[in-house]
């Protein structure tokens, strides 16, 4: 019987350590997982900086996770099944929940309301688990959740124009780019990204660098950066009648030019998590894993995660960091 597991622990004073967390024993409707890989998301970094959204301390973050079922008392999953974790924990009884889990008025997330993926074992409700396609590598399956987010964002944008400006080429920006070109390979994607390693990745994947010396407005601008003025910058750079798709969470309240939005007939679209895209993302990863391989640029062992997270602000990764558990 597994009673404890190694886990990354975030204390309320925002100190991080590798410690042990007690595991409850799974009951019917739950499964015990041996987690294999977890992804580091920008929102994890936000929580590490701020402590926002956490319900119980110490927290174990990480909502992009894949693992193998070790025990499933209700029999919903066969032992040995590889599963991807659905990060959303909706309340189940609000008006939003009747439409989609991501519209829940009290939506919480794995890693904040229940221990997340930065641990070796987890007990989770089976409703949060999706069986992986046979043969899908765990190291690729770990991208399912953020890819679902990117797919949802692109779905929210509606019909894609011939040119798109992407502001910010962190992991979610890269996934949005990948999803846009998966759907329409010939779309012209321009990227504005100050980090040279991230820009190098964007160019390798077929994007072009946005040249500020030749500013031009684009029909769709995706804000995947989340800096203080990124939404305002996106509005400046979108064509009249165009769309600003806000994917990154701003770290502070922002001020918008309401008059400009009205007079220029702009669409400002937000997108929270994903709706029904998670299985679609898993199928896309399974269909062409090599397409997504370059997006994972760094992998660390759980025992090295505290050290890596402590210098992540000064040494941001080129792409997605994944954690071997």
């Amino acid at each position, binding site marked *: 019987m597994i009673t404890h597991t190694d886990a990354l622990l975030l204390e309320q004073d925002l100190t991080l350590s590798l410690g042990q967390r007690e595991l409850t024993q799974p009951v019917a409707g739950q499964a015990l997982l041996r987690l294999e890989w977890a992804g580091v998301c920008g929102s994890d970094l936000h929580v590490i900086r701020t402590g926002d959204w956490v319900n119980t301390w110490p927290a174990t973050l990480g909502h992009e996770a894949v693992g193998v079922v070790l025990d499933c008392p209700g029999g919903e999953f066969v032992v040995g099944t590889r599963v991807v974790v659905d990060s959303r924990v909706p309340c189940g009884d609000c008006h939003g929940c009747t439409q989609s889990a991501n519209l829940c008025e009290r939506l919480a997330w794995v890693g904040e309301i229940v221990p997340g993926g930065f641990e070796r074992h987890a007990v989770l409700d089976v409703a949060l688990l999706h069986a992986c396609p046979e043969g899908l590598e765990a190291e690729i399956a770990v991208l399912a959740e953020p890819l679902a987010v990117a797919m949802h964002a692109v779905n929210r944008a509606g019909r894609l124009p011939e040119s798109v400006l992407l502001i910010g080429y962190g992991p979610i920006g890269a996934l949005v780019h990948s999803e846009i070109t998966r759907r329409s390979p010939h779309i012209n994607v321009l990227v504005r990204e100050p980090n040279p390693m991230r820009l*190098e990745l964007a*160019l*390798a994947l077929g994007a072009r660098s946005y040249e500020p010396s030749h500013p031009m407005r684009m029909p769709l601008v995706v804000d995947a950066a989340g800096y203080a003025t990124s939404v305002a910058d996106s509005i400046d750079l979108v064509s009249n009648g165009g769309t600003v798709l806000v994917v990154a969470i701003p770290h502070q309240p922002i001020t918008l030019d309401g008059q400009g939005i009205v007079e220029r007939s702009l669409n400002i679209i937000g997108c929270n998590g994903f709706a029904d895209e998670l299985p679609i993302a898993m199928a896309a990863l399974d269909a062409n894993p090599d397409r997504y*391989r*370059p997006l994972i640029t*760094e*992998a660390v*062992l759980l025992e090295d995660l505290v050290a890596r997270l402590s210098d992540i602000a000064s040494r941001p990764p080129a792409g997605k960091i*994944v954690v071997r558990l």
Partner: protein
Amino acid sequence: MTAIGDLAARRVVGLPTYRPGKPSTGSAAGKLSSNESPLGAGPSVSDALRAAAGHPHRYPDDSATRHRLAAELGVTQSQLLLTNGSDELCYLIAQMFLAPGKRAVLGDPCYAIDNTVSLLSGADVVRVPLVRGAHDLRAMAAAAIDASALWLPSPHNPTGVAVSHGELVLFLREVPADCLVVLDQAYHAFSSPGTSPDVAALLAEFPNLLVQRTMSKDWALAGLRVGYAIAAPEIIGPLSAIRPPFSVNSFALAGLSAAVDQPAWQAMSVARVREGRALLQAELDSLGVEYYPSEANFVLVHIDHSELAPYLLEAGLSVRSGADLGMPGWIRITIGWAPTMATLIDALRKFSSAVPNNG
């Protein structure tokens, strides 16, 4: 055995058999045994191969590709020869410059194909032992007196140690002008920025130099088999004359052109390899395991393959046994995809804690 069979068998007596790297027991990404590119070729290469598939009835025409590559390299087409992988070039060089009564100079250990083609030519083979993984350039230059060809892989395979531009210039000045120096730069793209020799300057000064490259490593076209030589027209011309016609096929030509048209992919891939190499070497330092600091997409590590094998098997990984490469007691680890390298580091830590006196 029949008389003809006996004749054939005697021709290959003493020739080592080339053994390719073994596949991993897990996913394909776990194969760290053949110095392949972990991310593969850029997306445009697949598109080009699909397009090339429409014309299998036509003989390949390499003129446009040679023109494109020559422009990329800053050389004339008369200085460039495409070959079916750089290994075909090894055979052509041996055929052209080596024969019974002639001498070939190699490092020890050396790249296996250089050794094979030299032996097959019937030439006398002089092996000059490496010193701390590096070519002993002074001893090689001395051995090159009366030699017809000298094979100089840099970065060296399997040690990964590279010769600097300055060392190379001094060495080339020592080597007789009638000895061909084959500078095999299969792994040069992975060298630290600023350490790769200035090939144009070297070729201008040393007409007996031939630079050998492959599209298999940083350009990730190993399965297509494309390599090339850069040298003086007086060398390239005769080599072209003995190269079988159409030895570089249409798919290889299409893939090469597409790859060269997307240099950003190669730059990104090389950057990832350099990062992975730095991480692995830092880990080996931390574990106290001996290795040769590498300028290539692999690291030669002083661990016996048989001791590490159970840990690799459990992790679903394969690396190359040094015994295959003239370095028994060592392993050669190709730098793989980031998650694969994390899995490898996990296996190395487990091995190191279980077998603390390794290396």
